[in-house]
């Protein structure tokens, strides 16, 4: 059994101040995320995705049930500094989390708050900048960078604080295609080479297809989970929730409806290419 890094047990959450009739934002979530896993979280707006992320690093505390990071409950205030240091959050709009006047200062912000000695801060900042390939931007003012570069600065800031786990709330929604590709590549590198655990909220099926496991939230409940080939090929479920799948999965589904002999579980372009090429050889 792999080491469990994040766990939700019978987790429910209702936003304070909501009248008694409004439903809880999350209800009865049981979920385990292993260390080093890459999990995508999909679902319509308002399904509870961002709320779940905030519960994972104790920005919110459960109304009922419990959340554990590395075996430590978020309900115990003494655990929170540890949890926040290990479990960093990346928001949709990097402008909302960049505070420094230069890239270097921004990346050092959390470390200064942790009162680390200056040589240690310098070492960690330059390591994080190098890891993300933005060392040349160290002295740049963040507001003059492109969206993709800013999102890398935000990632560097979180990683410099020694995060083992990244909670990503639609990290590419504000980026152009080049910025999106750069951030996705970086996330995969962090997961594969550094073993960083990723929980990635996204509206893009192409992004969810990159994960090891896809979780579907609807109305505050976990309605489906499984590998991308299973979840993203379940077009009836996705359509019922107003979601789409990848272009390859959608097209494979349409062709199968037309009687084309294609197997289930096609999610990536290359899988559809392989299937059509093998059909061309056979017939």
């Amino acid at each position, binding site marked *: 059994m792999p080491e469990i890094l994040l766990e939700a047990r019978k987790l429910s959450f209702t936003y304070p101040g909501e009248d008694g009739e409004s439903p809880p934002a999350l209800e009865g979530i049981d979920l385990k995320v292993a260390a080093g896993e890459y999990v995508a979280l999909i*679902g*319509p*707006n*308002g399904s509870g995705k961002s709320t779940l992320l905030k519960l994972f690093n104790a920005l919110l505390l459960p109304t009922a049930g419990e959340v554990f990071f590395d075996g430590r409950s978020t309900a115990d205030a003494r655990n929170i500094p540890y949890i926040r240091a290990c479990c960093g959050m990346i928001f*949709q*709009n990097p402008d909302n989390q960049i505070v420094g006047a230069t890239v270097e200062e921004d990346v050092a912000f959390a470390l200064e708050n942790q009162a680390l000695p200056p040589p240690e801060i310098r070492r960690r900042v330059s390591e994080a900048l190098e890891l993300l390939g933005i060392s040349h931007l160290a002295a740049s003012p963040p507001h003059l960078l*492109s*969206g*993709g570069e800013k999102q890398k600065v935000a990632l560097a800031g979180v990683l410099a604080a020694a995060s083992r786990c990244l909670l990503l709330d*639609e990290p590419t*929604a*504000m*980026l*152009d*295609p*080049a*910025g*999106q590709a750069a951030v996705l590549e970086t996330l995969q590198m962090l997961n594969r080479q550094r073993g960083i655990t990723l929980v990635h909220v996204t*509206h893009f099926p*192409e992004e969810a297809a990159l994960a090891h496991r896809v979780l579907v939230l609807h109305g505050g409940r976990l309605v489906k989970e499984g590998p991308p080939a299973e979840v993203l090929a379940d077009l009836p479920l996705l359509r019922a929730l*107003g*979601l*789409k799948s*990848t*272009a*390859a999965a*959608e*097209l494979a589904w*349409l*062709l199968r409806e*037309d009687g*084309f002999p294609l197997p289930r579980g096609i999610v990536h*372009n*290359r899988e*559809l*290419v392989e299937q*059509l*090429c093998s059909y*061309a050889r056979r*017939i």
Partner: protein
Amino acid sequence: MFIRTEDLTYTYFPGTPFAVEVLRGVNLSIARGSFTVLLGPSGSGKSTLLQHFNGLLQPSGGRVYVDGEPLGYSRRELLQLRQKVGLVFQEPESQFFAETLFDEVAFAPRNFGLSPAAVDKRVQRALQLVGLDDAAFLAKSPFRLSAGQQRLAAIASVLAMQPQALILDEPTAGLDQAAQDRLFALLQELNREQGITVIVVTHRLEQVVPLAHHFLVMVEGRIIMEGSAAEIFSRPDVLERCGLALPPATRLMQELAAAGLPFSTAIFSLEEARAEINAWRERRAQR
């Protein structure tokens, strides 16, 4: 032509060490009643260009024409311009301030000095267009709407000016699929039924390609390509060099063609791809 620019240039912080020339001689024409998509990587000057169309920015050089007239920048002229050309910013709901949806949408018509009865009518009409006209919404705080509804409400507050042109900067960022579909259906209706000229900056091509008449590609402050979807997306090399993406269906067909399958790559939607592959299968079955 409804909007036209002539050698438009714009420099931020002119005459300082921080001067950045963002627009470097933009010449473009946008026809009345058309649906135009402006593509370009971040930092290419798209948002800066859009802000010239309703006079938020004044050109450093060159000219902007709206409805045949060169723009003037007196208070009175700008007030008139902004009733003609409505601009929806990125994440427009972050500008919400009113306590009720009604007051939010009524803000611009009230500022234009309309009577309470006329304001009422404008608000009803705008909310009807975006499908938020249920009476229960009117007294609701705009902050209590869902993300998709907030975006629609922000668009309604621009439509309440009854503009002839609607300009939207990345209108789908952060919206789920259902909300994106609703938003594009709204833009299509505004364009085709109401005759509103629509100009959209977006990176999400799959929904917008079937709606658009005209594409402009902007790179480093200049328009480097323009034309129909077929003209623009037949040059994937140029788009890729500019950090732009192809519609997912086009990319898929290109991968199939690259693997040696005899498919056209001038395909922009999944339905077109489906027809192309089915026709191929029938041809093979007949052999």
